């Protein structure tokens, strides 16, 4: 850290602000960039998101267009040629689908379900946590009791229970993930908000008779964001992993919209006969995604934690 300070002060005069003090955002960005591992994670993550976004343009074939598939191409090892001359770089599954295309399309579903459920859970959980911290009394104890109760059961059990009631489907999995995850956000945001609400700027806002919702969401929420961002990053990885697990068990996404977990499940039965690629490559894609997110999240935690030893 000491090596970096001169650079920071040197760059300060070039900024448009008159004060030589580094803004918190700039400090976070600079410290984040100081870890090569975290930057690598961010780079890989960016690449994965781009691959998922542009899957229809990049993928050699549309794996769900039956016209493009030929069962004769089924279970070919990586690198082999199809009947019409296409190369299957990662092999094919039992339906003759190109695994590379399957993985790119699967990434889309995995990421969409993971990210959207984590974001909605963050919205619901953080709001409830803030309300609990700000309202206090019975509201707080009711919300926190539910949080405690839910967190005393492991996430897979809660998700299993919800899917047993609702049945499989993309929306149902997303809903299960939201219900599993909101409690973590609520606990974190309440913890942070309890500290923040005693500070003077909240007191000042209360003296100015600023409306309650405004205090909650315009004053309190922005100051509670750093730990929530860290939790959200890690929770996206957890959501993707949990979705993959549920889909692997056959309780998650339907066969028509296979995520990485379902692709792995499809190849699982062929693994024992040595046709490893059907499960292995989707698994690698899942692994790289989760590790990349965790690398970024881990380093964000170090950078955003105000109590860290510097």
């Amino acid at each position, binding site marked *: 850290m000491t090596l970096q300070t001169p650079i920071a002060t040197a760059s300060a005069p070039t900024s448009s602000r008159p004060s030589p003090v580094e803004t918190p955002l700039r400090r976070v960005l600079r410290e984040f960039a100081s870890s090569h591992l975290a930057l690598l994670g961010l780079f890989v993550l960016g690449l994965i998101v781009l691959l998922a976004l542009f899957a229809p343009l990049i993928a050699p074939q549309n794996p769900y267009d039956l016209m493009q598939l030929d069962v004769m191409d089924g279970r070919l090892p990586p690198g082999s040629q199809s009947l019409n001359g296409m190369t299957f770089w990662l092999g094919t599954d039992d339906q003759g689908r190109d695994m590379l295309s399957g993985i790119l399309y699967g990434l889309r579903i995995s990421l969409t379900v993971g990210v959207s459920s984590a974001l909605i859970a963050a919205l619901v959980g953080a709001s409830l946590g803030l309300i609990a911290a700000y309202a206090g009394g019975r509201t707080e104890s009711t919300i926190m009791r539910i949080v405690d109760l839910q967190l005393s*059961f*492991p996430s897979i059990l809660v998700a299993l229970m919800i899917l*047993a009631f609702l049945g499989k489907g993309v929306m149902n999995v997303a809903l299960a993930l939201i219900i599993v995850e909101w409690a973590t956000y609520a606990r974190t945001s309440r913890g942070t908000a309890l500290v923040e609400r005693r500070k003077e700027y909240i007191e000042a806002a209360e003296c100015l008779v600023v409306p309650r919702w405004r205090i909650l969401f315009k004053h309190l929420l922005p100051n509670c964001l750093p730990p929530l961002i860290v939790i959200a990053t890690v929770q996206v990885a957890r959501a993707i992993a949990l979705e993959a697990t549920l889909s692997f068990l056959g309780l998650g996404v339907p066969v028509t919209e296979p995520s990485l977990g379902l692709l792995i499940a499809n190849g699982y039965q062929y693994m024992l006969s040595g046709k490893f690629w059907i499960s*292995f490559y989707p*698994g690698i894609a899942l692994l790289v995604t989760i*590790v990349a997110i965790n690398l970024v999240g881990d380093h964000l935690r170090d950078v955003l934690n105000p109590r860290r030893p510097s």
Partner: protein
Amino acid sequence: MIGWLSRRVLQALFVVLAMTVIVFIGVNVIGDPVEILIPPDADQAERLRVIAQLGLDKPLWEQYVSFLSGALHGDFGKSFVFSEPALQVILQRMPATLELAICAVLLAIVIGIPLGLYAGLKPNSIFAKTAMAGSILGFSLPSFWVGLLLIMVFAVQLGWLPSSGRGETRALLGIQWSFLTLDGLSHLALPALNLALFKVSLVMRLVRAGVREVLPQEYIKFARAKGLTERRVIFVHVLKNIMIPVVTVIGLEFGSTIAFSVVTESIFAWPGMGKLIIDSINMLDRPMIVAYLILIVFLFVTINLIVDLLYTALDPRVRLDSEG
């Protein structure tokens, strides 16, 4: 103490009751039992007759009361698939799951504590750093994927260990166990290791953090100044003081080990209750689902209660706090 205990037990009972309501509503209101139980070609009179027979025409609270009294008597109805009482089917599968979970927790202790001790005592050694980095993987990788890798390497490529089933079992106290035969043990190895990996990472990190915290304390310096051997300092003075959080977490994790055995059992075709519930959900075997959920909630609440009591017994400060 008695007051605290009774309050805690009451709380646990309330949680179980609340969960029965949730399960009841989830199964009977969100899903419609009539759709599953009545053949689609049944006429209206037949439908009404079955609905009346199942008591589904009564008000919801009456249905709940009869469901609850059945549950209290251990009666969750007959499984559609096995045509046996649901609870009985689950209880038959329970020893297999318990065996797997206990082996996993034992593995976590046997591997995790020495690794954590080493990483705490020599934090800068390469081995400790590798183990810590590995523990991050143990945390973040989905366990089903690790299980597949284990099968791929040890069962398919190397052919050392079997990848499915319980192997040969032998009876002890009237229940079949795998760990009593060599063949059973070899079947147990991969699933137990798979289930243990997450716990190994957890125990290791916990022990390491504890060692780092305890080592600079005065009483450790004093023990060393007294001239005690390093071995005695580490195994008595350090280890004894970090055991409270470790015991708590291992206790609490036992419940989640049973929950996560759902995944491991499905991969390794281990005939326990975790595989049973997945099969039941896929086959819409409603009485089995209900019986499993109520049973596992009960199990969890009981484990939490026991851990709480143990914690109070181990650490007098908790006891004093709750009284004061």
